Structures are given as structure tokens and as C-alpha cells.
């Protein structure tokens, strides 16, 4: 075989992957904490999540800057180029999921310490599935696992079903008592954030498929 070249570039690509995984872990942690804080109406955690979203944003900008630097200085080609292009997209998706956690933090502040309009059953389940999907997608990204990237978005239906149930229950409550509109809406927004988080995991999986195959692929989410 020929001489192995560009070891420092290869190391930089590894760092880029590691940073993306780190960003993913931060986002998963934030999302889990946000739903737990919602359950406990923990204002301190809610405020911390809103503040710490800045850290997630900064990490995403650092990853983006690293991608641009590598494109400008290393002229990446083929698989390397696709990886960097995918990281640019994936880091954006992760940052947006981080925004959903921050959004739930804001909802908690709006709700305050008063008792929730209904017990939290489906929303934590949505969070569990969405964060599980996200963790699996990060694993698939690390291992460039095409099969997993194709399978993970199938679970989006479970999240959608739960969201539809939450939506239906809350609308029914509003129809019965319109004075509950605000309190129902808060939970609806939280559920919607989780539903969107799962959608963004599917986008991440599309980018993993692109990295591995070079083909632009879109899941039919209907």
C-alpha cells in the first residue's frame, strides 16, 4: 500500500466528529432536564436551561467555524467533503433541538409553580423516545451506520401518535372550559417542541445517509 498521508487532517476530522457528538450529548441532556423540570415545575432548572442554551449555541458556532476552516485550508474531497457538509447540517439541527429545550424552559417560567392542568404522562414518553432516537442517530453518525440511519426515523410515528393524543386531550379540555386555554396551550407548546425534536432527528439521519452514500435523501414523514 502507499504511504498514509494527511494524518493531521484525519485527526481534525475526528475532532469534528467528536465535537458533534459532544453537542448532541449536551442537547440530549438539556431536553431531558427540561421535561423533568416541567414535571417538577423547577424554576431554577428552567432558568439555567435558558442560560445554558448559549453554551450549546457557542459550541455549534465553533463547529461551523471549524468546518469552514477545514474547507478553506484542506480542500476536502469526496467522503471528507460529505462528512464536513453533513456536520454543518447536523450541528444546525442539534442547535435547534437545543432551542426546543430552552423553549420548554420558558414555558415552565410561564406556568410557574401552579399545578399542571393534567398529569404528565405522554409528554415524558415523547421526550424518552425523541432523546433515544437522537442518541441512536449520534451512534449511527459515529459509525456511519446506514441501516440504523434508515431505521431510526421510523420511530417518529410513535412520537407523532403521542403528540396527537396530547393535542386531542388538551383541545377537549379547552372546549369544556375556555378559561383553561393558556394552561393547556403551555403544555401543547411543550409537546410540539418534542414532536419537532423528533422530526429533526430524521433530518440528521438523512444527512448520515448522504455522508455514507452521497445521495440526497428525504424521508416521507406522512
Amino acid at each position, binding site marked *: *500500500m*502507499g*504511504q*498514509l*498521508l*494527511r494524518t493531521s*487532517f*484525519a485527526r481534525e476530522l475526528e475532532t469534528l466528529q467528536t465535537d458533534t457528538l459532544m453537542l448532541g450529548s449536551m442537547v440530549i441532556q438539556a431536553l431531558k432536564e427540561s421535561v423533568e423540570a416541567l414535571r417538577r415545575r423547577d424554576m431554577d432548572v428552567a432558568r439555567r436551561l435558558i442560560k445554558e442554551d448559549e453554551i450549546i449555541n457557542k459550541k455549534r458556532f465553533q463547529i461551523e467555524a471549524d468546518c469552514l476552516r477545514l474547507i478553506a485550508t484542506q*480542500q*476536502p*474531497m*469526496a*467522503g*471528507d*467533503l*460529505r462528512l464536513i457538509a453533513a456536520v454543518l447540517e447536523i450541528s444546525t439541527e442539534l442547535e435547534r433541538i437545543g432551542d426546543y429545550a430552552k423553549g420548554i424552559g420558558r414555558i415552565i417560567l410561564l406556568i410557574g409553580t401552579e399545578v399542571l392542568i393534567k398529569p404528565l404522562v405522554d409528554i415524558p414518553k415523547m421526550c424518552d423516545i425523541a432523546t433515544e432516537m437522537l442518541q441512536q442517530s449520534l451512534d449511527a453518525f459515529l459509525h456511519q451506520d446506514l441501516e440504523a440511519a434508515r431505521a431510526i426515523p421510523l420511530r417518529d410515528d410513535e412520537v407523532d401518535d403521542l403528540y396527537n393524543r396530547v393535542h386531542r386531550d388538551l383541545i377537549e379540555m379547552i372546549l369544556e372550559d375556555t378559561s383553561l386555554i393558556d394552561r393547556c396551550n403551555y403544555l401543547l407548546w411543550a409537546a410540539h417542541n418534542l414532536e419537532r425534536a423528533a422530526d429533526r432527528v430524521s433530518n440528521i439521519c438523512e444527512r448520515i445517509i448522504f455522508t455514507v*452514500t*452521497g445521495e440526497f435523501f428525504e424521508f416521507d414523514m406522512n
Partner: protein
Amino acid sequence: MTVALERPAQTQSSQSAAYANGTGSFAIEAGGMGVYYGNFCAVRDVDMRVPTNKITAIIGPSGCGKSTVLRCFNRMNDLINSARIEGEVLFQGQNIYDDSVDPVEVRRRIGMVFQKANPFPKTIYENVAWGTRINGFRGDMDEMVEKALRSAALWDEVKDKLQQSALGLSGGQQQRLCIARAIAVEPEIILMDEPASALDPIATLRIEDLMKELSEKYTIIVVTHNMQQAARISDFTAFFSVDEYRTGNLIEFDETEKIFTNPSQKSTEDYITGRFG
């Protein structure tokens, strides 16, 4: 470098599909082409179809036979005593190695520009006029010289000093003069062997722009060591590698975009990503 032999993966993607299914036209079609220098097989079994009025780049590591292949396309290897060509090179349906074919006529219709600018030690005007004159040109020579110099994007820089020595021009200007000289005889194909490798970055970009303009009228085949240049300027790319016998092989030929974003062959990917060299 040695790599496992792979069959060339030709014309896989969308734009090249037109060429794969026969609706595109080809300026050169090499079939089973091999080149020997004495007993040494420099290049083996090349099947390659070069689309008309496109820029095709030939890339690969040193010693893979890029320039050898290029020189086969206008019989420049005839000038090397020990060189022997196998297979065929079709130009407009005719094998240019047929006994009935005049190599001088081949070289008029398939011109060449070399790595190092090599103007004749004559005036700028004469450099352009010379080729057409010996081909018996009977038209308006001044007009022809101006047209060739304009096509080579050199006219504005030399129009007031046409009778000065070409050797007084800068390296980039000399190379564009050589391109003007090549196109003056109205070839159909221009072969370029590392045409910008001796030039500074600005002169290089001028040559690249010029190649893009020329590709509207001519088929261009360019050998380059500069992969970014191949990626920037070419429509199609041929990747050659060298096997354990130091023989060059065509590994992959495809649309340039495909080669540089998602090549079919692992050895292509290893080369263009700089993993192995």
C-alpha cells in the same frame, strides 16, 4: 504506490448518462489502448471516451501514465523510437494509428500545449502565423493572428508589440501565446499537459478561465497534478493509478462532480482525499 486492480467505472451519473447511452458525442474514443516503451508496459488496456466540447481532466499519481495517454491522442509517442501502441484511438470514427493516416494531419487537428511554454524565438506575430503558413493558409494573415490572439485572451496585451520577440513575454503570456499558436491552425481538440504548473496563481487562473472559454469551441483534455484545478475547470475526470508492475491503469472515468464528491472506486477516493499517494 500500488493498488488493487479495479475495472474502470465509467459514466455512472446523470450528466454522463447522455454519453453512456450514446446520445452524447465523443471527440476521442480509446479502446483497449496500451502503450509500451520497449518491453515496459507504461499504460494498459485503456477504454476511455472523451466527450466533445467538454473539458476532460486526467489525474493520478506520478508515473501513472497521464502524459503518456495524452500523447497517444495525437500520436506524439510516434516521436519516441521505443514506443509502441496497442488497441485503437478513434477520432471521428477513424483509428488515428491506421497506416493510411498522416500523423502531421492528426497533430494539426488535435493540437497540444505543453507544461513549459515553448514559443519559437521569433516575433509574437510569427509564433501565431507560422503554423498556418506551413499548412498553406491563403487568407488574411493579420486577421487570423488577431483572431487567435483574441481567442487566447492575449490580444489586448500584445496588440502594440506584435513584432517584438515572444521571449520577452511573461510566463503566463508565453503560455497563452502557445495556446493562440495551437488554436491558429483550427484544431478540433486541444491537449494540454500541465499547462499552468509553471505559472503563478494569477496566471494560472487566467489560463483556467481561458480553457473554460475555449471549451465552447474545442474539446480539451488536460493533464494536471493539481486536483483543485481539475475540480474547478473540468466537466469529466479520468483517474489513473499505477499497479505493482508500475503500469498505468484507468481506474475511474466520470463526471468531475461525481469523482470529487462521491467516487465509485476506493482507490480514487484514497487518492483525491490525499489519504494515499
